[in-house]
């Protein structure tokens, strides 16, 4: 029991250090992407964003599996909590696609309004 306790203590300390380091790296990446760290250098947005999303997912994994002890629970419990979360993957894809479509539609309307404005005087003449 006491050996167990020492082991768990070590894992908790290791996890929090990894989480802190990953967070600092994330903030540095965000600032590099916006041109703060290297003066005037804007790193590629797609690369920086995917890095930050990947690191956040890794942080989420550490919190759930180590801090919330999911790693050591019965398989049935793990599956019954984690599998439903997979539904969100489709929700994210579908809704972001929808948002993009709204932007596109708005632009279409703006462009059409412009055409009608330039064409109206031509008709009356």
């Amino acid at each position, binding site marked *: 029991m006491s050996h167990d306790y020492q082991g768990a203590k070590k894992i908790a300390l290791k996890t929090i250090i990894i989480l802190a380091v990953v*967070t600092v790296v994330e903030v540095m990446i965000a600032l590099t992407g916006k041109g703060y760290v290297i003066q005037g250098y804007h790193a590629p947005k797609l690369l920086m964003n995917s890095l930050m999303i990947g690191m956040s997912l890794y942080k*989420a994994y550490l919190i759930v599996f180590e801090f919330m002890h999911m790693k050591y629970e019965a398989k049935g419990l793990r599956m019954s909590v984690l599998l439903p979360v997979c539904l969100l993957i489709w929700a994210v894809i579908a809704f972001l696609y929808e948002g993009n479509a709204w932007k596109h539609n708005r632009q279409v309307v703006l462009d059409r309004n412009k055409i009608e404005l330039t064409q109206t005087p031509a008709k009356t003449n």
Partner: protein
Amino acid sequence: MATDTVDQKHTDVSTENGSWEGGAYPFKVGYGKLMIWYFLLSDAFTFAGFLIAYGTLRFSTPTWPVPDFVYSLFPFMSGHHPLLFVSFMTFVLLFSSFTMIRAVQEGHRENRKGIVIWMFLTILGGLGFLGCQAWEWTTLIAREHMSVTTNPFGAHTEGGIYLGADGKQSEESFTAHTSYIIHHIDFNATHEEGAPEAGAEHEGHAYAAPGDYPDALVDERGYVHRKYIVADGENAGKIMYEKFGPKAFGALFFFITGFHGFHVFSGVLFLLTILVNVIGGVYVARHNGNEMVEKIGLYWHFVDLVWVFVFLLFYLL
């Protein structure tokens, strides 16, 4: 005789693995712990719904306030410190998660003194986080005049040059994607109070009343929309004025961080209640390794987990 055998068999099965006798834990955890997991699953869906709505609205607008411009103030310090304060907040919550897991571990070995110390530190962390959030909200509302429906943070879609007080081009220019904040003046304030706020970039002259000035459009509510001449793009040469940023920004920010903050606040209340019970020795009689501390621990880590994504979506991306 045939019935006897069936009865015999039935008894054998039930005594062998005791499935019908009760007392067996499915998934090898207690009822309360299993249910808190399912509660957290449902709560995860609630937060995911809000955050996905945020993503959808952000994708649907051509510009979005740049986080390192919006969140760049720090208490007692002047100038811009992009993301410094929110990173500090994140660390406060992260370390309270660490003190929480230490409390759970002390609970497993029934060390009451250890639980009390670590839980107390966790409560302090939670209160610290709430304090930081209070400062952040106060700054946004009172100093930068953001509200649920008004978003003074915008970003230029094209390059341009600001107009001076005489209505002619000034030396101040900007490129596309540059962030700006629409300042607010209080017409009723005396001169000292109406002085430009800290973090203000454009000090300009004071406008006594709403109206159309050579260098800015001052609206009824006192927001100063600076005028500029467009330098590139299809509108080049036109005189335009700075418009409010995407309207959804304020509502999403206050609603999502508010909902998260409310989780932290209720978490602190739960922690306090359980701390009092631990001190009173309520859980000693249960002989289950202080499972109640473990349950509030799960909730507290979940709040930290949500913050990972709030931090990512609002402050980093």
